[in-house]
């Protein structure tokens, strides 16, 4: 018999300190799916193709599947822990209750930077897309993309400010459209409907693995981009009607959707675009699915994938603002950051100060850094977060065994997924090191400095016992 049943009618959805006040609980499993897939699906529309450039088309496919295994482990582990944590902040809140405050502070920053950088990358892509459409419709000269980048970030921040239900319902619609566009492109170009234009054998001839096996390792760096952000479903924990049921369902359905979308995307693009063009996301293919549609000769597909790309970037940026602001808000509420950020809007019940504060941060990076750098910063923060997850689940199972808290979902084969995730993270660190080692060391140097700042300065403003807000029993071993 378990001591605490977090899935029971009385406890499911219990918020911090056992109360049911806080952010507004209005979301269902479909919104969780839309939040997770909406953030990530843009990874199919842009960015993943840098993996082709790092090792060739086959290397990108292998990286896609290894990254798929990594994220499946992430989704399984995350689903178990988050089904017991009905509070905003996602992995930040998990770390606070399971590992400790400094780890939580770091995890909170991983989340904010991973999502804010992803948001910036989305805005850059949206600006690029507008410029391409302008050229296709007769605009002469180079269109200034900056106003569109600013407009995207400001509009979506306003939407998030006004309320989570409208925000994620908007995401649900445009994410479904973007996913359907990939399926239609696959059906139209693979020969299932109409004449096929795939030519994998001829396009791969002489270029199977241009860098050899080390290229496969290097590709894993950008292979993460196929799925980066699926873990963001946990950020909705305080706004979901039934966290114990909806979060695991939405997260696991999301990773299955993405595994299909990622493989289809690789198949379609690599069968139509030469690998050197496909793999260069700066001078070659910025939006590979859109470029594939351009080569199909169908004006309908060009418009479909054009809107698909635009909707995917908007859905992702929208979800990123949602998630980054929840993590920043949760840290403010706990005084890990100035408490001013922990305010909830009196009318819209959204973390409005966190939303507004992160707008200029996103703009700095969207307007000031190239796309591959922005993507790398996002991946690095995500990777540090994934490295935390195996440690998190091992400590969770040790401190609260299965007989102490009944979970909404128990992931199978523990600790195999944790060990596999940790191993794949180690390999990916090496992949990032192959070319982006300076950023890796700079970013970890940053986290060391801010960790010392937090431990020796900031933590004095934090209540000790009050941080532990979940209705869990005392952890074993303490």
């Amino acid at each position, binding site marked *: 018999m378990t001591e605490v049943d977090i899935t029971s009618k009385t406890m499911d959805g219990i918020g911090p300190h056992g109360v049911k006040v806080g952010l507004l609980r209005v979301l269902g499993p479909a919104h969780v799916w839309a939040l997770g897939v909406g953030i990530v699906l843009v990874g199919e529309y842009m960015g993943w193709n840098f993996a082709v*450039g*790092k090792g060739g088309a086959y290397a990108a496919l292998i990286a896609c599947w290894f990254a798929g295994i990594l994220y499946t482990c992430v989704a399984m582990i995350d689903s178990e822990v988050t089904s017991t944590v009905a509070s905003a902040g996602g992995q930040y809140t998990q770390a606070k209750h399971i*590992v*400790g*405050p*400094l*780890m939580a502070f770091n995890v909170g920053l991983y989340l904010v*930077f991973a999502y804010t950088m992803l948001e910036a990358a989305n805005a850059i892509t949206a600006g690029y897309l507008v410029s391409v459409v302008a050229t296709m419709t007769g605009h002469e000269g180079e269109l200034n993309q900056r106003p569109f980048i600013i407009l995207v970030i400001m509009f979506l921040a306003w939407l998030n400010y006004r309320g989570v239900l409208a925000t994620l319902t908007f995401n649900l619609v445009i994410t479904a459209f973007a996913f359907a566009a990939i399926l239609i492109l696959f059906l139209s170009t693979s020969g299932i409907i109409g004449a096929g234009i795939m030519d994998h054998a*001829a*396009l791969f001839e*002489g270029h199977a693995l241009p*860098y050899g096996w*080390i*290229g496969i390792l*290097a590709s894993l760096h950008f292979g993460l981009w196929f799925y980066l952000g699926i873990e963001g479903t946990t950020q909705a924990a305080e706004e979901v009607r039934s966290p114990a049921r909806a979060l695991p369902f939405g997260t696991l359905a999301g990773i299955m959707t993405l595994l299909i979308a990622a493989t289809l995307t690789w198949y379609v693009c690599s069968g*139509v*675009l*030469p690998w*050197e063009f496909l793999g*260069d996301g700066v*001078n070659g293919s910025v939006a590979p699915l859109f470029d594939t549609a*351009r*080569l199909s000769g169908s004006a309908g597909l060009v418009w479909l994938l054009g809107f698909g790309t635009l909707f995917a970037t908007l859905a992702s940026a929208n979800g990123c603002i949602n998630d980054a602001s929840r993590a920043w808000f949760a840290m403010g509420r706990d*005084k890990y*950051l*100035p*408490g001013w950020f922990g305010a909830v809007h009196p009318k819209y019940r959204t973390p409005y100060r966190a939303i507004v504060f992160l707008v200029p*941060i996103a703009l*700095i990076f969207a307007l000031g*850094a*190239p796309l591959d*750098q922005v993507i*790398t*910063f996002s991946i690095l923060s995500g990777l540090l977060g994934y*490295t935390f997850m195996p440690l998190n689940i091992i400590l969770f199972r040790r401190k609260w065994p299965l007989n102490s808290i009944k979970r909404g979902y128990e992931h199978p084969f523990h600790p195999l997924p944790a060990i596999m995730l940790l191993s794949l993270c180690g390999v990916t*660190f090496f992949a990032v*090191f*192959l*070319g*982006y*080692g*300076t950023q890796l*060391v*700079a*970013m*970890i*140097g940053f*986290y*060391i400095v801010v*960790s010392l700042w937090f431990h020796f300065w*900031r933590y004095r*403003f*934090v*209540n*000790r*016992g009050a941080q*532990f807000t979940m209705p869990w029993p*005392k*952890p074993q071993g*303490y």
Partner: protein
Amino acid sequence: MAHYQPPAQGKASQLIDVIVLVVLTVGALFVPIWLRMAGASKSVTAPVANPTWESLNQNAAQAAKYEALGFTPESAHDLILSRFDYSFSIGALVTMIAVILLYYFLILRFSEVEYREVISEKFGE
């Protein structure tokens, strides 16, 4: 354990904390870019004079795709021949591993100290 009462933080102090975080963040992300140490840049190690699709190792199908995308052998030269350099030194690899391990050791150790205080205050000794 005695209940810890945190000091109240003034508005100016809160503002300074935010500025410190933003400056550190922007610095960590932009300094490598400003110092031109960021990212793996590709280079053409063996350029081809007067390139043709054949001399760029492109078969008929690959050449047709490039032409459909609006490229000529001249304009596609750098795109096709640019390659990353994956050579690295063992010293740099060991340094990276050491920095990562140091980082996780640091946060796990400090976190454990802080966590024991939290549990002690929340649940009592």
